């Protein structure tokens, strides 16, 4: 048994001349909640489709839960719950009947326990009351919840969830995040794709960053935070002078605005910076060392911003 729940090697997908996913080496440790982060169109869904065997990689390969795919699909996929590119259900069947159909298709699922498992999954996503409604009458949020219920029909060792909070209201988003936490606490590995940095910060232990088909960073969230260079921020009524002093001290990326100046500390000790500022006659009304937030990290990695709202 390998230590990785998802492992890929050089996974590549070309659509015509466009390279949607380029030599991605994923390594998702067992038990992790792995945030697969990237802006729209960066190749997350395409990667997930390859992981699940829906599309063939142009080159490269991967394993799920230690089994080579796609050869091991029949044995490994029953242990994998998946949500790919939004919900997909028969509109004229009820939520309950849609789940019955999926369960009936699963050769490893026990028919005798089907209704109990379906009920439990529906209750878990808060759809118990709407179980008998036709899918076409569901709101976007309810549809998303039904897709999550489908991913939890059986006990799973791995959940691959593609943008699971899409279309949910803030309350639903919180519920889904706590659901993911609960699944992880039960021992499942979760691969969660998202374009929301806040989502990764709130629920993930690991992160992989996609940018234009490339996996540009992959580590634990902690390591990534530690790499973030700390900045000094000086509050003063003479910000231009403060900025000059910081620059002379060797700080980099120094900027200033109406009432403060900041710069990346680098090897400079904060005490020394304060002492020099005071010594040079710059009045210091406040001084703080702030770690760069992850967003700045990712902007540095991908050269563009993320949608960090919600």
């Amino acid at each position, binding site marked *: 048994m390998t230590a990785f729940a998802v492992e890929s090697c050089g996974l590549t997908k070309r659509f015509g001349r466009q390279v949607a996913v380029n030599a991605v080496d994923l390594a998702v440790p067992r038990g992790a909640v792995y945030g697969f982060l990237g802006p729209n169109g960066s190749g997350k869904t395409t990667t997930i489709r390859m992981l699940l065997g829906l599309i063939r990689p142009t080159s490269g390969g991967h394993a799920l839960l230690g089994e080579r795919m796609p050869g091991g699909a029949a044995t490994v996929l*029953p242990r994998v719950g998946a949500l790919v590119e939004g919900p*997909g*259900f028969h509109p*004229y069947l009820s939520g309950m009947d849609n789940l019955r159909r999926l369960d*009936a*298709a699963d050769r490893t699922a026990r*028919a005798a326990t089907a209704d109990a498992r379906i009920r439990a999954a529906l209750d878990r996503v808060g759809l118990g009351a709407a179980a008998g409604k036709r899918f076409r009458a569901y709101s976007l949020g309810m549809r998303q919840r039904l897709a999550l219920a489908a991913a939890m029909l059986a006990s799973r060792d791995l959940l691959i969830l593609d943008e699971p909070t899409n279309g949910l209201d803030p309350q639903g988003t919180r519920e889904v995040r706590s659901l993911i936490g609960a699944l992880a606490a*039960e*021992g499942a590995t979760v691969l969660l794709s998202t374009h929301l940095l806040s989502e990764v910060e709130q629920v993930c232990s690991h992160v992989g960053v996609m940018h234009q088909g490339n996996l540009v960073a992959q580590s634990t969230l902690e390591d990534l935070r530690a790499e973030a260079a700390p900045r000094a921020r000086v509050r003063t009524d003479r910000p231009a002078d403060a900025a000059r002093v910081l620059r002379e001290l060797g700080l980099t990326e120094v900027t200033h605005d109406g009432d403060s100046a900041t710069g990346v500390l680098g090897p400079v000790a904060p005490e020394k910076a304060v002492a020099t500022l005071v010594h040079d006659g710059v009045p210091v009304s406040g001084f703080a060392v702030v770690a760069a937030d992850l967003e700045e990290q990712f902007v540095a990695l991908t050269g563009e911003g993320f949608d960090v709202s919600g």
Partner: protein
Amino acid sequence: MSAVEVAARPATGGVGVPFRFLRSELSLIARRRRNQAGLAVLAAVPIVIAIAVKVASPTSAGGGEGAPQFLSSISGNGLFVALAALALEIQLFLPIAVAALAGDAVAGEANVGTLRYLLTVPVHRTRLLAVKYAGIVAGAFIATATVAGTGLVAGLVLFGGGDVTLLSGTTIGMGEGLLRLLAICLYLTACLAALGAVGLFVSTLTEQPMGATIAIVMVNMLSWILGVIPQIDWLHPYLLTHWWENFGDLLRDPVAWDPVRHGLLSAAAYIVIFLSAAWARFGARDVTS
């Protein structure tokens, strides 16, 4: 939770109820309103035939030159309502019913996004095609049997039963007549199963079920059209629909087995070729719907 529990589960082989997925597929087909409405239309045709014949000519044997097959025999025995209805509906209504089912089979699942979820359950692609095709064939048989059954009931109510006078002039008992009607239903199901195989293949080519259905109906019509152009009669025996109307040969005495055998062989060839094509196409296809 999962690791232990999952390990205890058998990796392969059905658990509990056998053919669960096939049953689910059949109920999906049966519960769809569109299919129920279609079946009602199929059943209406023999009733209309029976009433029309009854009202138009209560005594004389109706149907002159050019009238559809079997129509003139109806007043003699109600069984012929079923045969006349089959002869009429095999030309367009039954093929449309099969085309609707087959068009939906793969393209319909792709269209609503359920295909990717079935495949990740996982359902092996070959198994999915097998279940889908079984659903189409079952639908074809139920459609044919519905036409025959409604025709039989309407005919018996309005015209009564009794001995059946065959086209060749000989007479058989009602029991054997019913047996031959069943054989005709099975023969037509085989013919429609060939169309269903073509349809299943077409359905793997697109994500638009309506488009697939229309294409399948057009294949069927094209076959009829080519079949009436005498200049290409060398082609006729190979056409999808060429042997369909030979179901009447099952009503001769003795039965004319040769055309029936040809019809079954032709259907088998179409089924083998187009199921293989569907398998080759769908097995390798990227599912991006």
